[in-house]
């Protein structure tokens, strides 16, 4: 396998209506597999969230990370994703999340650190065009003068790499700290004021609505790498719905690391 460049691939875009959290987890697994087999072209998927969620990393302990009672009280679904990394607190509209499904050849020969920065170079460019000076902070964060913007995670499956990123648009910090246990320590660790009511680096630094930022990111990707509009195939959605029911909503998976 030789190294490929972004422009060697025919990139497709999926940006569809809001979907429930567990279906997003399942779509990542299905679409990574589809790109790995070559049945689907390399794809950028922008997520829209159908409901609030805590998404924990593949190797995180459920009880150490999540205050289950608080999650229930706020009506928040807790799901475990297929990639490592840290917990995310999601409410529809409070974050921008995307996945890139690419052949492994795109990061062939790269260290983990290089591969993360490579997969998000277009994002840094898009943010720069919106007036945010952002850079990669190893291992897997995108940060800015106004604080951390995003966390990334990769997983390798078959012949494909899944690279997904969640960016903070405008997060209710109090609710997040109510639900995430580790978040309480991490925030103090990073010098963020615990009294902060919002974690809103994208909103406060661009002054733009979330949709406008997403439109600009898509335009940047399209300009740099090429991008054709696409949709989920019916069989992809059907597979993901089965997987959401049989895996990603089950206590066995969510509690795999109890």
């Amino acid at each position, binding site marked *: 396998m030789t190294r490929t460049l972004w422009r060697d691939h025919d990139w497709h875009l999926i940006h569809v209506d809001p979907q429930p959290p567990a279906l997003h987890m399942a779509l990542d697994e299905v679409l990574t597999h589809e790109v790995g087999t070559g049945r689907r072209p390399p794809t950028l998927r922008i997520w829209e969230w159908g409901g609030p969620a805590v998404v924990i*990393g*593949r*190797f*995180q*302990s459920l009880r*150490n990370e999540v205050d289950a009672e608080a999650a229930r009280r706020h009506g928040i679904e807790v799901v475990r994703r*297929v*990639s*490592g*990394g*840290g*917990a995310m607190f999601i409410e529809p509209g409070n974050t921008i999340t995307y996945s890139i499904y690419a052949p492994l050849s795109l990061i062939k020969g790269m260290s*983990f650190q290089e591969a993360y920065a490579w997969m998000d170079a277009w994002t840094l460019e898009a943010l720069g065009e919106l007036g945010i000076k952002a850079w990669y902070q*190893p*291992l*897997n964060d995108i940060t800015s003068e106004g604080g951390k913007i995003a966390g990334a*995670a*990769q*997983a*390798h499956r078959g012949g494909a790499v899944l690279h997904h990123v969640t960016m903070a648009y405008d997060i209710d910090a109090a609710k997040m700290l109510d639900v995430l246990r*580790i978040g309480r320590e991490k925030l103090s660790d990073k010098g963020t004021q615990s009294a902060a009511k919002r974690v809103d680096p994208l909103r406060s630094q661009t002054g733009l609505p979330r949709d406008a930022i997403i439109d600009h990111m898509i335009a940047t990707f399209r300009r740099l790498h090429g991008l054709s509009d696409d949709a989920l195939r019916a069989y992809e959605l059907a597979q993901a719905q089965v997987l959401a029911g049989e895996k990603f909503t089950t206590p066995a998976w969510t509690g795999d*690391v*109890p």
Partner: protein
Amino acid sequence: MHGEYKMPGGKLVVVDLALSDGCLAQVQVSGDFFLEPDDALHAIDAALEGQDAGADEHMLATAIRVQLAPGVMMYGVSPEAIAVAVRRAIDQGAAA
């Protein structure tokens, strides 16, 4: 018993365990690190299960290393970092 260690330049490693007859039991390693393939986590837990509670960091790291299948990739975590978190769980648990 619970121990945590933030690997320098890496991620947070968390270990929960119990002691049974002077040996590690119910070992659970967790954290916001990255492992490929993902079932390597259960191999790591299994490698630590039954280890002597007096084992030092080097012995614990070696026990993990020999158990890992060839080709396992770790990012933001290492056998040594896990061993530190295990020792912290044991020592802090003993002090509590």
